[in-house]
């Protein structure tokens, strides 16, 4: 049952094949079994069971609230949850219990979803590996998959060779990949949803900026943050997006116009589409496997009658630096509120208010956060503002224009890699510092955030190491529905295999109903 998609399990709930409480308990038991993944910071067992009970009552009375009623979900620990600790994986917010729900959380709860817990991340979502949080790194469930174990080198057969989940929403990705829930919320500022989705073999969706409310999402970069969605298939993402999207009076940057979102048709025709392949995304660091899959994917579209053309996004190479300046500047500003006075950690040093601030922030933030605050404040200094912040804003505009030009020229969707490589072992990953890693790993993803476009990472195939590889589709602003429609077609063509978690399957928790495992159309 847990291996099913959200839509399938929703149907099972409606038909009474399983009750919300049964489902909830199975997920809770799996969460316990997969504790070693470190996917969850907080497991909200009591809350979830109570919600399941209420959901069950609704089903009995025939008053289900919809597709999400009784469905276990997880939420990244940077979304405010009323009465449930929200830490951002930081000492600064350990013990902080928000008095309100983020709008997206509230919307899920209003639909009857069961909140299983709060998922792990890099501290304040600053990172690309989910390795830099105060609660320790998230382990990629694929590290323990049959597919990977069979193919990895013999000298790596001890447990220290586990892989990173990607980040910063690695906990959410791992929670969905390990079947502990059917959908999870991440956040995406520079790729934080798409990157771990690619590494964990999931659909990871970043909506258009302004489509989904950020109210209650503890910000990294306000002008780029969006709530992201993790599911095991595109249809499920569409269901969740349909619930989350829409204007929120509490977030002035959400668009007023109603966005039409409907269920994606089961038969999709891509023959009329124009798919753009940005040539600047073909970088030397891209693994040959991914490059090859990217090219096969382009061929796939072409073979179905779509027009596939090479396009240029000329300012791509400036994007990462520009992102760095804008990101750190906003971080410096957004983090100013953490001074130990109103909430969160407060240092015991109280010789003066200033000393208390300094000690609180020293103790509360990790090095990554402090470094970004320092850089950001440097860029915002009066003497530097024009040379850094204003220039970066101008470059951002050019990057946006690159995309607009391409879409104006008739391209419907861009096809790119999501990551340079498959997930790397943790020990490999931490050889580089957070900043270097983020700059490398965000290469294909952060420009989309600067332009506010919708993008989705779709799992495509397994690498030689038996690890998932995702490709990214980027759509026009607010054409999220069209983007997901194309993604669904693509997903259907590639038939990505289901993760085989031997330990979990042994005890019968995971009954995989279909035989998708071998039908991979894009093979190496």
């Amino acid at each position, binding site marked *: 049952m847990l291996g099913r998609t959200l839509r399938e399990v929703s149907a099972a709930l409606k038909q009474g094949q399983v009750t919300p409480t049964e489902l909830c308990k199975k997920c809770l038991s799996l969460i316990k079994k997969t504790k070693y993944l470190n996917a969850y910071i907080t497991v909200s067992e009591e809350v979830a069971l109570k919600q399941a009970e209420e959901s069950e009552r609704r089903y009995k009375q025939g008053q289900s609230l919809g597709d999400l009623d009784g469905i276990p979900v997880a939420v990244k620990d940077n979304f405010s949850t009323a009465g449930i600790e929200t830490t951002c994986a930081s000492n600064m917010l350990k013990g902080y219990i928000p008095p309100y729900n983020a709008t997206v959380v509230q919307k899920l709860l209003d639909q009857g979803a069961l909140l299983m817990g709060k998922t792990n991340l890099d501290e304040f979502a600053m990172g690309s590996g989910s390795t830099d949080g105060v609660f320790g790194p998230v382990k990629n469930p694929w590290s323990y998959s049959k597919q990977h174990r069979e193919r990895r080198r013999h000298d790596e057969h001890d447990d220290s060779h586990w892989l990173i989940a990607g980040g910063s929403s690695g906990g959410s990705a791992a929670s969905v990949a390990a079947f502990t829930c059917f959908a999870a919320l991440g956040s995406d500022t520079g790729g934080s949803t798409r990157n771990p989705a690619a590494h964990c073999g999931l659909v990871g969706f970043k909506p258009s900026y302004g489509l989904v409310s950020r109210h*209650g*999402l503890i910000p990294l970069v306000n002008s780029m943050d969006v709530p992201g969605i993790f599911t095991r298939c595109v249809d499920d993402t569409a269901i969740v997006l349909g619930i989350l999207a829409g204007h929120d009076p*509490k977030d002035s940057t959400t668009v007023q116009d109603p966005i039409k979102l409907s269920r994606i048709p089961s038969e999709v025709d891509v023959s009329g589409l124009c798919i753009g392949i940005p040539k600047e995304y073909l970088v030397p660091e891209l693994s040959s496997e991914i490059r090859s899959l990217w090219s096969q994917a382009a061929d796939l579209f072409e073979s179905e009658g779509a027009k596939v053309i090479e396009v240029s996004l000329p300012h791509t190479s400036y994007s990462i630096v520009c992102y760095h300046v804008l990101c750190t500047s906003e971080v410096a500003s957004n983090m100013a*509120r953490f001074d130990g006075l109103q909430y969160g950690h407060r240092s015991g040093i109280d010789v003066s208010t200033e000393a208390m601030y300094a000690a609180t922030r020293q103790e509360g933030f990790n090095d990554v956060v402090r470094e970004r605050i320092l850089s950001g404040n440097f860029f915002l200094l009066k003497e530097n503002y024009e040379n850094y912040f204003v220039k970066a804003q101008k470059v951002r505009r050019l990057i946006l224009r690159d995309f607009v030009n391409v879409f104006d020229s008739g391209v419907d969707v861009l096809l790119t890699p999501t990551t340079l490589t498959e997930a790397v072992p943790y020990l490999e990953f931490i050889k580089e510092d957070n900043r270097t890693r983020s700059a490398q790993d965000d290469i294909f993803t952060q420009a989309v955030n600067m332009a506010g476009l919708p993008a989705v990472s779709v799992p495509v195939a397994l690498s030689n190491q038996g690890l998932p590889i995702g490709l990214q589709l980027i759509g026009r602003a607010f054409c999220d529905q069209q983007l997901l429609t194309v993604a669904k077609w693509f997903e259907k063509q590639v038939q990505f295999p289901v993760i085989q978690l031997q330990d979990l399957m042994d005890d019968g928790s995971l009954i995989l109903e279909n035989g998708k495992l071998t039908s991979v159309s894009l093979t190496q």
Partner: protein
Amino acid sequence: MATSVLRLGIPGRRWALAWIDGGSRHRSGTQPGPTSNRARGQSSVTQLSLRTAQKPRKGEHKWAAVVGLEIHAQICSNSKLFSGAQVCFAAPPNSLVSFFDASLPGTLPVLNRRCVEAAVMTGLALNCHINRKSLFDRKHYFYADLPAGYQITQQRLPIATNGHLTYSIYIRKKQSQVTTKTVRIKQIQLEQDSGKSLHDDLRSQTLIDLNRAGVGLLEVVLEPDLCCGEEAAVAVRELQLILQALGTSQANMADYEIQRQITELENGGEVLNETRSFDYKLGCTVPMRDKEGKQDYRFMPEPNLPPLVLYDATSLPSDADSQQVINIDQLRDTLPELPSATRERLVQQYGMLPEHSFALLNEVGLLEFFQNVIKETRAEPKKVTNWVLNTFLYYLKQQNLAVSESPVTAGALAELLDLLDSKAVSSAAAKQVFEELWKGQGKTAAQIVSEQQLGLMQDREALEQLCQATIDGHPQTVMDVKKRNPKAINKLIGLVRKASLSRADPTLIKEILEKKLSL
């Protein structure tokens, strides 16, 4: 200074000196530039920063003061600038604080329409250009009563710019000579107020009250066109009256506050090349701490608020939701009569002296009181003006009362003036009646007149007898009268009035005396 809602120049009243050379003023201090931070921990009301505009050159130059002001007026609105928390004075500490005001992570600002309207109306009343698009910025500094670590303000593109404020000053105390002057208004910006820090020196604690945090402020930035403290005070007073007339701010700053500032400005002999702040407790300016003076605010666009777009009748989209848009032309039509127009009307309508029109507007509620008296009395407007400004206002000032606290109502004064107008009482008796009314014992003017027999003697025969008795009793004075000594007849009149206990009409006494003495 808890009662002050209009706070003068919190981020720094800018004083600058420019030298006068051959009569032409070189105003090199007109660049307002970023000035000091607030004088936190001192007065929450005001801060004065002095800076020289220019180094004095060698040679004979006279110095002239150039005063620029930044005035913060709290917007009169039910809720705060970016949150739904209530705005209410003197509520229990931290009882009016939304999650946003406390800067809980994840909360976002939502602009209050009323505050925008207040800013637009103020801009229109001050002849400003209203920007069709304005922007919000973050201004960063750490302070305990600034929970987010930044204040949302309008640094780059404020809501209104390039206006002017006209004010009138009396020349050399000659009350009748009023000169009209103009001060340019650089800009009006919307911004958040901060909370309050309450320092408990005894326990060396600082307590924070966030009730005020996030309340909408209008910052009105005046160009340094003012030449002295008196001008500055008059200009601020005029601005205050405009804000009150608009209802955009209560701007109910105590008068002594203005007075104190005038004195401060006029006594500002020593001008230091440093940022100074006004210490409310010490009553003088003190140099601000270096740290604050050199603060870099690291301004940044506020990413959570889209540009504020305003419309006019021509640009308003036809399908616009009226709840979501602000139409400048529509607001212009709703502007009330402004103080300058009110004064002009008073002069025109009642033939009043300009300075009387000023006096009537200068006291909260006095104009309304005056108009209520006018409505209810038959007395001449001039007489009403005199009574309101001389007698009524004098009594108020004596006891330091507001118009609303007066024991004498407009109706009571109107009744008294009617008695005076119908010659039922003399002017002198009317003053006595007024004094009785002021005691607030619930008696009407007529009752007091009758109880204390203050009415004019209506009995001519009795008055003639009084006159005769006076003539008989003062032969020497009568002789003087006959010798055409002009003062003598007045002396006789006075004697008769005294004998009548001030109840006789002097005109009538004179008539009778002249007749009796066959003049």
